[in-house]
């Protein structure tokens, strides 16, 4: 098997080959490092990685190989490499959150998910690009330049987790961690033809994920197959005493659900409000095809209404910035990160904090801090934050009512395919609309999965299909997702990424 074939395998296949002794983890990690070196850098590079963790990844791989050779019992994914969204803190690698304000900052502690990745002995390839503090739907708001979509380098890879999705789509990593506050795992998955899951709120510890909106944020897996996401969620999930909002449920049974292979008799609900008007024709077509396939596999497809979903985006853009304005207050240059002194006038603490935040934060971050500060101000709180919380309750009720009728819900993940870099940068509202179908899950804390549904007729770009399940029923997503994936792949004759254009090496370009 060539290195090129190797990196196109799924994580489960890589794990099997490692277990069988057909490959070593060092070979596997080196193949990915070579791929990163070939396609990630330079003017036309994917730019999925902000930091490549070469030495440590190879050292962990060598350690796994030695342990395996010694007959030690290892975790199923031991030796399989992974990329980490740069919103998650890591010892030994910088964590920037995609912001200038954290440039060069080294965390003195590991996020809980990182401790679990280390415990499973998965080599970390590096940290992936994102919209600054995970605020955006295109990765264009990164202070370190946008990530490019491997399907078309002039298009966005989605956001905020464009780096993780693009890394997986470009075979720079088989697995990645993302974070999803309003769709930051699922929307990039949709536009890059990859799989991503936002687990139930509390299913995965948030400790060490730099907070944007605490009540909405969730860490989750990014991969090329449904089974791979299930395997990764089993690694990172479970109770964490350091996260008061973490659930006590064990993170088990997800891969088994993905391997079940049938949906016969399951009731699947189309959300009336999350398709049709505002959704690209090619997206609608692929969505309808998926429904037909599921129906053909014995699932019952019904339509349900979630009348309050229409208010979700508006409520989200009050709750999220409110929490973000508070969570980002700590970035003031006093204790860590970049400090910028005012160029004139006295050096008071307020002025240093002000200058640091003015220079360190990008426009989208400032926009949300200002919005949130306003929404929480005395006299406005009830009208904005208070009302938004009421909408949130209504959305939760809509989900509860829908899940009384069906086992899972289904919708397109994103109303549109990947748009051109720069196209929506000056139109925040158009940008925000990308998350219209993903936001309700965050507002209610329910899990959501995206998987590739094919390519849109009009532009040949990937379309995402979203599945939603009741809280703590993440397994249902994996069960239905894996079945739909296999039906679609049978139709395509292989994974959707086989249809993606080959990426030219940018290594030479960089060397110049």
């Amino acid at each position: 098997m060539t290195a090129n074939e190797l990196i196109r395998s799924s994580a489960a296949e890589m794990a099997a080959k490692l277990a069988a002794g057909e490959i070593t983890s060092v070979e596997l990690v080196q193949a990915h490092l070579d791929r990163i070196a070939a396609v990630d850098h330079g003017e036309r590079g994917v730019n999925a990685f902000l930091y490549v963790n070469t030495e440590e990844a190879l050292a962990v791989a060598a350690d796994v190989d030695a342990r395996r050779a010694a007959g030690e019992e290892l975790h199923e994914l031991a030796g399989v490499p992974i990329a980490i969204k740069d919103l998650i803190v890591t010892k030994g690698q910088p964590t920037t959150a995609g912001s200038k304000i954290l440039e060069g900052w080294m965390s003195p502690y590991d996020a809980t998910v990182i401790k679990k990745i280390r415990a499973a002995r998965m080599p970390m390839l590096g940290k992936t690009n994102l919209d600054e503090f995970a605020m955006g739907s295109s990765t264009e708001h990164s202070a370190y330049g946008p990530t490019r979509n491997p399907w078309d380098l002039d298009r966005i890879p989605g956001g905020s987790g464009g780096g993780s999705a693009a890394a997986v789509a470009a075979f720079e990593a088989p697995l990645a961690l993302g974070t999803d506050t309003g769709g930051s795992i699922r929307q990039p998955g949709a536009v890059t033809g990859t799989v991503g899951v936002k687990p139930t709120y509390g299913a995965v510890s948030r400790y060490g994920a730099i907070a944007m909106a605490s009540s909405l944020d969730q860490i989750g897996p990014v991969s090329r197959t449904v089974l791979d996401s299930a395997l990764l969620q089993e690694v990172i999930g479970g109770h964490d005493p350091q996260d008061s909002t973490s659930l006590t449920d064990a993170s088990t049974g997800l891969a088994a659900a993905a391997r079940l292979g049938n949906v016969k008799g399951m009731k699947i609900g189309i959300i009336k409000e999350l398709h049709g008007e505002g959704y690209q024709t090619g997206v609608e077509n692929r969505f309808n095809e998926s429904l037909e396939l599921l129906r053909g596999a014995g699932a019952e497809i019904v339509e349900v209404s979630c009348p309050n979903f229409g208010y979700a985006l508006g409520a989200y853009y009050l709750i999220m910035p409110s929490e973000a304005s508070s969570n980002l207050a700590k970035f003031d240059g006093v204790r860590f990160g970049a400090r910028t002194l005012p160029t004139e006038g006295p050096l008071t603490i307020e002025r240093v904090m002000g200058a640091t935040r003015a220079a360190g934060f990008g426009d989208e971050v400032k926009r949300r801090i200002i919005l949130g500060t306003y929404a929480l101000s005395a006299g406005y709180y009830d009208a904005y934050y208070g009302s938004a919380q009421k909408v949130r309750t209504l959305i939760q009720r809509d989900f509860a009512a829908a899940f009384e009728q069906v086992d899972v819900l289904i919708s397109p993940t994103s109303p549109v395919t990947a748009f051109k870099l720069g196209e929506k940068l000056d139109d925040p509202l158009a940008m925000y609309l990308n998350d219209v179908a993903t936001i309700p899950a965050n507002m209610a804390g329910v899990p959501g999965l995206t998987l590739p549904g094919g390519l849109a007729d009009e532009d040949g770009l990937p379309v995402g299909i979203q599945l939603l399940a009741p809280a703590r029923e993440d397994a249902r997503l994996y069960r239905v997702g894996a079945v739909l994936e296999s039906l679609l792949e049978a139709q395509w004759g292989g994974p959707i990424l086989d249809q993606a254009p080959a990426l030219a090496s940018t290594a030479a370009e960089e060397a110049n």
Partner: protein
Amino acid sequence: MHVDTILSFDEAMEKYDPVLGFEVHVELNTKTKMFSSAPNAFGDAPNTNVNEVCLGLPGVLPVVNKKAVESSILIGLALNCKIAPHSTFARKQYFYPDTPKNFQTSQYDDPICYDGWIDIELEDGTVFHVEIERAHMEEDAGKLTHMGGSTGRIQGADFSLVDYNRSGVPLVEIVTKTIEGAGSRAPELAKAYVAAIREIVKNLGVSEAKMEHGNVRCDANVSLRPHGREKFGTRTETKNVNSLRAVENAVKFEIQRHAAVLDSGVAITQETRHWHEDTKSTTSGRPKSDADDYRYFPEPDLVPIVTTPEWVEELRSRLPEPPAERRKRLQADWGYTDLEFRDVVNAGLMDEIEETVAAGASAAAARKWWMGEIARRAKLADVDPAALGVSPAVVVEIEKLIASGAINDKLARKVLDGVLEGEGTPAEVVAKRGLAVVSDDGALQTAIDEALAAQPDVAEKIRGGKVQAVGAIVGGVMKVTRGQADAGRVRELILKTLGVEG
């Protein structure tokens, strides 16, 4: 520096009626902090009792300290509060480097304890019923030290040092409802109220309760209104008044200052005030309006605190003897008169006397020392007697030295001086200073013979039966021995020398 004109207290009271309110912050003595596993310890090297959570580093999350919740409920129960079955935390947001997250995690509209009361007894036995609005949980801020300025305040400082050891220490803030009707007793009530809170939290064992360490800190709100008017005047809030005497003095000063300002026809500025122990006065802090916008919102990283009736009742069963009942018991045990006991309570020396008695002293001796020599020295040093540095063990040891005849009362006072000057234990002071009573009869006899020879007429009177004249000879002997003789023994020897029956 601007010096406020003040009215005499009596004049202020003639014209105005004071309204009070107190916010007392109690630092809990839990092993770890409110929301992190970092140690909760006082006095260590700066920034050593910290971890990523109480430093507010990116990505961290808080976890509530269960022990701190229990301590808070205990305080609430001791203050006759209701305990909320469901209460939440909120973020109080402001940019200042003593709070590493630039918000303080506190409780806002649903405190864990609410609607309580406490009866406060003043020195003359008058009882004031003080209503408690709430007692809520929050985290302490770090400690800032502003360097280079003349005032110690941030304005004018060259730079500031930050110590986050205190950042995240669990606090319970006890807030009274407005207290009306205290009249001229307002300063006394202020002192007695804070003393009562200190006593309760110490008795509960939930706080070290040392005001000098900032374990108990009082913000005192004062406003005045002309007699007969119902509407409250504008209030000021004097911050962090850190001793019982200071609480009394600060309230008194603010009443006098408000009265002078109002008399001159000027409105009181709603603001915080800083208490200065050296000048016994307050100075202006920052303006404080009811519309201060802290952008409170529910803390999304914490789940609500749910208290079950079983849990609350289990905690109630742990409540120790209430201080008022304890006082009744101790007075009976010690056999003090009402007046004696009230003096002890008002001096804040009940614990010290209890410990001294427990260590082996008689109740009378413990009172004699604490209320006498120790209190007198404390007053001279302008500190609370308990803070002077005399331990119960010292009192017991001095008493034993007296009982054994090694020293007399006069020498004992010198021993106390030596202990306070750091010369060691009482026995060590006796040895170092050579304070032992002269008990060598030979040496005493020589002194007596000399004294008798010097005053032959007195000697003659004694021989003639005027035994009371012996005092003059005793005095002479004590003078020669510089007080280090046992006066009783000297008297005995004089009478023996002169062949007279005592």
